[in-house]
């Protein structure tokens, strides 16, 4: 950076922005809100320590996730991100149940088909192709004290560019 324009962090903290400021690459001066939120929830000192413990190529993602968590905590001061996790886990459970019901229905239909047909219309090997294994990957279980479903958290707004 050629000029001495302080980053958003140093502006908020009212200090000189050093050339090797740990915040500067991730908290540009044109987005003061981003650092304000992170500072409010985590504190500048803690954020600085967290970033310094990471290698440089990990810091951008770390900042993004910290901003996300801070925003979630501001939106929901009681549950923060845990509210979203609880909501999503409920969704996974419901989908698993629906999938199990659908797979059972396929089995029923196939069992109904087989004894009735006077001439075999379906190749048994084709039948087996419909038998789906339950490939749902295991989701993380965690003991949460909260069970709040956050209707306000829409999936499309949760994760922008963090997922690579």
């Amino acid at each position: 950076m050629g000029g001495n324009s302080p980053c958003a962090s140093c502006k908020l903290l009212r200090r000189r922005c050093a050339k090797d400021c740990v915040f500067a690459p991730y908290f540009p001066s044109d987005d003061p809100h981003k650092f304000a939120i992170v500072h409010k929830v985590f504190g500048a000192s803690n954020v600085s320590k967290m970033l310094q413990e990471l290698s440089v190529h990990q810091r951008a993602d770390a900042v993004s996730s910290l901003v996300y968590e801070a925003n979630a905590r501001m939106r929901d001061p009681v549950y923060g991100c845990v509210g979203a996790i609880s909501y999503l886990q409920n969704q996974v459970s419901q989908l698993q149940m629906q999938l199990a019901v659908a797979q059972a229905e396929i089995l029923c239909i196939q069992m109904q088909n087989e004894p009735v047909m006077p001439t075999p219309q379906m190749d048994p090997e084709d039948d087996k192709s419909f038998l789906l294994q339950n490939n749902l990957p295991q989701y993380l279980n965690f003991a949460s004290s909260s069970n709040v479903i956050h209707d306000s958290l829409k999936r499309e707004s949760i994760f922008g560019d963090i997922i690579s």
Partner: protein
Amino acid sequence: MNSERCAACKYLRRRCPSDCIFAPYFPSNNPQRFACVHKIYGASNVGKMLQQLPTHKRVQAANSLYYEAQCRIQDPVYGCVGIISLLLQQIHKAENQLAKTQAEIAVLSNSHTQDSQFQQNFLLQQGNVGQSSRPSTQPSSWFK
């Protein structure tokens, strides 16, 4: 009267007042809980966050802060956002699987309906051979 300091005040090496904001949520028998939360948020921020909430909501807030702090310690880059990402991927996969399965149900159901109609037509035709007026569904007609 409990004169023992809570985990927070022990950690911060200070006297634990009777109205300590931390005491109900960071008991002295679980020092790791406060240490975790302090490492990520700092005592001052945790205290402010709890104070801004009504008393009956503070337990849940303390628990969720502890959970998020643990996630961040285990995964310093993504914290609990990594878990959210994983869950979103799993939901996406499960939805795709469900859609596939439901499409297969539709195909199977259609083919079963068509086959049933075929059978009915087939049986009707068999019954009509040599019998112009009698309904073919009566089995006695087959043994003539």
